[in-house]
């Protein structure tokens, strides 16, 4: 019995970890090495160690870009959570026969190419676009709304892209939840709000945490959507890194920025886990 157990536990995590070690950590080590080298004007590197790239990354100009990206990612996560929770709830509590179809319907738009999707948003949001025409003919607005090429359009585009990443973990959490506790609380006369806050929310925190992470972290580095839908001053850290790598060909500085971005995200995650740990053991996956 004992031997069998060890056998099971020894092999399960190993292949995945080995894989990530080879195809993620090793290439990323290259990035870390690059980040402490000196760049040459021709886009190459000099084999001399320096921390200048990190010092430069802490310039207020770049910190401001990072802060703006973090704020946008936070906003996207909040809006996605607010929309995804009732959505997942309605799917899980609806007819069991429709669950699969509804989940598929939520996921399918995310298989649409990002560029194509953003072009469609331009058509919808522009001054004489679909939305303004519809609202105008309904008499809801007098002046067309200037949504496009502004933060609102970026938010709309990002929420659209990442919403399924929130709905799926929430649905999985709701599905795993012990629904008999909900019935029991109801039978004991608890109100809907109380049942939700005291019974449902604590049981789905792990799903909320995973969903928020899967939305917040990729949004932090997003650059296609801010580039296409954002206004003249919409530079995000993802675009900044891309510019440094492609336009300026300063690979060491781009590497330093990427390492910093990953460090910020890891720190945010560690903080969330500590908070969750304090709130209750095992609350976060």
């Amino acid at each position, binding site marked *: 019995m004992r031997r069998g157990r060890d056998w099971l536990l020894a092999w399960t995590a190993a292949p995945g970890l080995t894989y990530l070690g080879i195809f993620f950590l090793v290439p990323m080590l290259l990035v870390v090495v690059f980040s402490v080298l000196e760049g040459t004007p021709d886009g190459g590197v000099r084999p001399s160690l320096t921390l200048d790239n990190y010092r430069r990354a802490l310039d207020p100009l770049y910190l401001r870009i990072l802060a703006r990206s973090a704020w946008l990612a936070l906003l996207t996560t909040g809006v996605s959570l607010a929309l995804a929770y009732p959505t997942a709830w309605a799917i899980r*509590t609806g007819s069991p026969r429709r669950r699969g179809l509804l989940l598929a319907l939520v996921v399918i738009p995310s*298989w*649409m190419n990002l560029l194509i999707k953003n072009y469609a948003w331009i058509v919808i949001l522009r001054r004489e676009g679909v939305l303004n025409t519809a609202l105008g003919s309904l008499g809801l607005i007098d002046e067309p709304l200037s949504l496009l090429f502004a933060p609102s359009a970026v938010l709309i585009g990002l929420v659209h892209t990442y*919403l399924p990443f929130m709905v799926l973990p929430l649905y999985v959490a709701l599905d795993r939840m012990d629904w008999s506790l909900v019935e029991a609380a109801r039978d004991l006369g608890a109100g*809907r709000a109380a049942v939700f806050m005291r019974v449902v929310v604590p049981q789905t925190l*792990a799903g909320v945490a995973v969903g928020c992470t899967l939305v917040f972290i990729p949004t932090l580095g997003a650059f296609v959507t801010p580039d296409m839908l954002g206004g003249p001053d919409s530079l995000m850290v993802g675009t900044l890194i891309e510019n440094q790598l492609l336009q300026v060909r300063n690979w060491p500085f781009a590497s330093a920025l990427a390492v910093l971005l*990953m460090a910020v995200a890891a720190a945010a995650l560690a903080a969330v886990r500590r908070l969750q740990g304090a709130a209750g053991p095992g609350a976060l996956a």
Partner: protein
Amino acid sequence: MKAGWSARATLLAVLAFLYAPVLVLVLYSFNDARFSATWQGFTFGWYQRLLESPETAAALRSTLVVSLSATALATVLGTLLALGLHLRRFRGRATIELLLYLPVVAPDIVMGVALLAFYVAVHLPLGRLSIILAHVSFQIPFVALIVKARLQDFPAEVIEAARDLGADEGAMIRHVLLPIIRPGILAGALIALALSVDDFLITYFTAGAGASTLPIRIYSMVKRGVTPDINALSTLLLAATLILIVAALKLQKRPNPESM
């Protein structure tokens, strides 16, 4: 507890929001205009043009091979990883869990360039295989994280009970663990597939000559501005996906109403 009207209203609003650009896409795939600015009349021309393009067909084939094999591999590795992390308490586990998030946050372009440099250093020939290997590395964490969320609070006693009843490891996995985590695996695989199908930057850098996938084709076409036939292609792909999924759901015999 049934869904209240507000939750159902949100679901409908969310679906309307999610499908707004899809609707525009479908409509414009029939628009007799090259620059998708205004409605110029109905045409099937873009679909016809699409059928006559062997390059788009090759890119589509490449995308399917890459996405399906990468997703299959990542789903297996990610699920096993989640099981291992959940079932086994070992030192450094928390750190490993944190490290799992790094591929999620690593900027695509940096990861693409780093992987290319790595491939060149170890003499791994660029082709389709190199794209698949790259995709798996950013897909594993997504699958593992979602499966792990499903495993959360999974009572270890169930395993003990199964063992005490004499179940061997294989039987335990098949009959106890898998049914419980199946929705998590499916959700993880769906997200992994979505990521792979639409990945541009990492694919661009790790692709060998002749292995271009659809996103590479689309990016280069859209940047030059030949979009209507891409609208037509996207419409066909979305329709095919929808039909496949609906058919699969209809055909699926469901012994367990709790599953997806």
